[in-house]
């Protein structure tokens, strides 16, 4: 369907030529693929344990009670302590901890007191801890994963819905277009943020976290797809009246084939330039919602929640807000660079000048 025609290849070449955007893209892809192995980067379970000649991989297996490793308690092993114990004993037992040896949920209170701790290399809290003594780096890693994937899922769903409806409106026109346009006008006048807050506040918070995130996504998509339809509708209108569409119709192509094989690929290039900016706006939206306390349910790690904590303890724990803000700035800057590069490389002006 999306064959690499010479036009597209030219665009991609141009995109690669814009170094700032291209490298940002590579970094982002790298980040995205890293997020799928977060568990190996930041975790309180060990990567690998060798105990009495047997190898264990606790991260991707069932929990091991302390008794499995010669400890005297029946609950989950504390691998950091176990490592220390192995070192002290000096035997053949050994274990490897991940880079960040804390999971994003555990409260690692020093002296049993919950308070933000400054970044410390020796304790392994590279960016310090938040107000309830959770490792900030670990929370940032998992929070970024959720934010990125959430934004991607959001963007995909919004575009899928917007493109289908916009295309249908443009292609079929007439009464269908008229009615849907009025509906969209009404629908898009509902304030998005308020609706998310209202709808989300009536969802019982007893639901599992994944369901709640899914519902949040659903609600946000529900109120965000309308703007895409405008572009799609006009593009389709324009393409529909071109000769190649008439030709296809005369040859007996079905509506579906005409839309997906002929119109869509030609109409899509404008939309693609918007994608990075939609990703940005959705990351901003989810962060803002978290900041207000209406976003991802606690204790899900999230950038907005960290920002909120940070602004609450600006004087006493500036590292919280610096970490969260820094991450957000880096993330959004990278995506903006990509967006600018795409926009530039897809700029039709470059190709319509007769030489």
């Amino acid at each position: 369907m999306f064959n690499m025609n010479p036009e597209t290849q030219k665009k991609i070449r141009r995109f690669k030529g814009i170094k700032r955007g291209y490298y940002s893209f590579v970094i982002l892809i790298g980040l995205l693929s890293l997020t799928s192995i977060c568990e190996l980067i930041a975790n309180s379970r060990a990567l690998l344990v060798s105990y009495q000649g047997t190898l264990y991989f606790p991260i991707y297996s069932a929990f091991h009670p302390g008794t499995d490793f010669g400890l005297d308690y029946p609950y989950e092993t504390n691998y950091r302590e176990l490592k220390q114990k192995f070192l002290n004993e000096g035997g053949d037992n050994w274990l490897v901890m991940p880079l960040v040896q804390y999971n994003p949920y555990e409260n690692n209170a020093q002296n049993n007191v919950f308070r933000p701790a400054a970044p410390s290399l020796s304790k392994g809290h590279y960016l310090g801890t938040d107000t309830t003594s959770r490792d900030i780096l670990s929370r940032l890693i998992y929070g970024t994963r959720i934010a990125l994937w959430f934004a991607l899922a959001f963007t995909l769903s919004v575009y899928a819905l917007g493109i289908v409806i916009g295309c249908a409106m443009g292609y079929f026109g007439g009464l269908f277009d008229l009615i849907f346009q009025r509906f969209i006008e009404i629908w898009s006048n509902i304030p998005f943020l308020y609706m998310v807050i209202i709808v989300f506040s009536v969802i019982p918070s007893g639901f599992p976290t994944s369901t709640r995130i899914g519902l949040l996504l659903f609600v946000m998509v529900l109120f965000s797809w309308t703007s895409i339809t405008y572009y799609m509708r006009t593009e389709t209108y324009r393409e529909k009246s071109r000769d190649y569409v008439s030709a296809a119709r005369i040859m007996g192509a079905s509506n579906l084939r005409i839309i997906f094989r002929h119109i869509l690929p030609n109409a899509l290039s404008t939309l693609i330039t918007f994608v990075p900016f939609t990703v940005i706006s959705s990351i901003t939206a989810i962060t803002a919602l978290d900041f207000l306390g209406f976003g991802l349910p606690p204790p899900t790690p999230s950038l907005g929640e960290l920002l909120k904590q940070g602004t609450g303890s600006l004087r006493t724990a500036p590292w919280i807000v610096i970490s969260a803000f820094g991450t957000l700035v880096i993330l959004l800057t990278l995506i903006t660079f990509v967006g600018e590069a795409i926009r530039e490389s897809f700029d039709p002006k470059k190709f319509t000048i007769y030489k």
Partner: protein
Amino acid sequence: MTKKTVLISLALIGLTALNGCSGPKDKQESNSLGTNNFEEVSGYYEAHPEFFVFRDIEDLPANLKWEDGSHLAEIGSESAKKGGTEYRRLQDFPRTLRIVGPDSNGSFRPMILDYVTMPLAARPPDEFDFYPALARSWAIDQNNKTVYIKLEPEAKWSDGQPITTQDFLFMFFFYQSNYIVAPWYNNWYGTQYSKITRYDQHTFSITVPENKPDMDSRVLGLRPVPRHYYVELGDDFIDRYQWKFPPTTSPYTLDTEKDLKKGRSITLRRDKNWWAKDKKNYRYRFNTDKIQFTVIRDNAKHFEAFRRGDIDQFDLTLSQYWYEKLPDDDPDVNSGYIQKTVFFNQHPRPTYGLWINTNKDLLDQKSIRVGIQHASNWDLVIESFFRGDYKRMKTSSDGYGEFSHPIIKAREFNIEKAQTAFAEAGFVERGDDGILKNLEGKRLSFTVSTGYERFQDILTILKEEAEKAGLELIIEVLDSTTGWKKVQEKKHDIHFVAFNVGLEMYPRFWETYHSDNAYYQPFLPNGTLNPNRKIKTQTNNLEMLAIPEMDRMINAYRASSSKEEMKKLAHNMTKLHHEHASFVPGFVQPGYRLGYWRWVRYPEHFNYKYTRSSTQLFVHWIDEKIKTETWEARDKNKSFSPKIETYDQFAE
């Protein structure tokens, strides 16, 4: 009571009897005020002759023992200065100035009602007694369940009208009427009092249905409603009085035109002609001329406003404020600009703990509940969240002196004991995630909900610790209204909440433990639990406790008028409740901590035993001279000696 006061009161009674009227109707006194609902009101009095009784002053029993609390020490400090402006914060602008009806029970109401207006007689903050407020003297006839009152003849409303018996008769009409849309008030004033008898303009008596050891406080705590003001009381009460400030007995009044900036600020002004301004127990209190409340929604901003000196005082009770945000070595503390104080008080403690719904699957088994008790690590919560400043609660009725059980303690955190208890209920094996499961593969998992966002971390600690014992707790943090609604509809598994308890002589049991508040038809005729029982919602029996033995004791307790018997029953009920294991006692806060700029002054001993907050009694004052001095010193980098003080005279 001294002879002199008796003579004076008798003389006054004589005087008022002469010019006052003993007519039975509202009509005679309100006519002159040009009222237009006097017929309705007097009609109501007539229609309820058993409740509203009209007698002559000669009918007043002769052998009453009148009291006037004159033996009590004065409240407040002689060195208090009048004047100045106090700056405070409001988290939210009040939704109404009404003190009753929808939305009226907000956090601002104490400032126009509970803390400032005058009851008949008030509890002194150091002793379990009464000092006079609107009443000059009172007499208690325990046998006839009646309290006799003589009003202070000088007592006036803030608009200058005298306070008379009419205002108390009308109080019952007001709170019993449907106009105010307040069912709780309708019920309380309709059932907790059985009769008001008018003797003359300043003398009346109020009778209660049951002869309880603390029946005096039921009556003496009453606050009148201005009869002359509510002359147009009707169905439009809620809207009409939404933003009106009725005449009050409080020293602080407000002008709704000038002092009310909707959504932004409220200013209360001291009434310089307040009738009680030279009265004992009142003359050294309510010192600041103005109290300005500014709306600051965000807690972090509130703290910054305090640090800037825009707000005079800040509650440092939460550990993070006391230890980190305003530590003892903070420059402002070190140079003495801001002072820090710990004050230990005594008060029945709010019941912070886990309320287990015994009507839920698994939670109806005692061994599971005992397991949950042993799997809740409150000691760690106190140590890590409250930095060891709080204490573990023993039972759900701590802080009632001899009415609290002397020995019982909450069960300790103990993984082995928890696991033994869970094993009794069939939960022996641990699953892949470390959570116990029974033979059918059911996981040992419950939802712990709460409406306290600020205590979210407490639940996180409990959750992590419970997992060690193989118990999964799913945390559900709701906003306070939703959280409360959830438990009121009895939809919770386990809920973390506390009931605020007033200063009372003995704990209440009926509300929380009687089966009447758990189910409709809780028992079968043979005394066993009815399998078809229907849940009763909107009551405070959050544990869904239905034990015939408990019911029997509660009924005896409610009917009893012997202190000794009630004490014994209270102990037995506390014991039974402890054995039932449906409430996991949490923590008690032994006092409060405060940070305040040095121009805020407090009495020498700082505050009183039964106070819940430092400003509750208005014994503090603002010294404007010191304020100017402090700002000048700050400009010139001059410092004062730091003041960090602990007042533990009432530490338990």
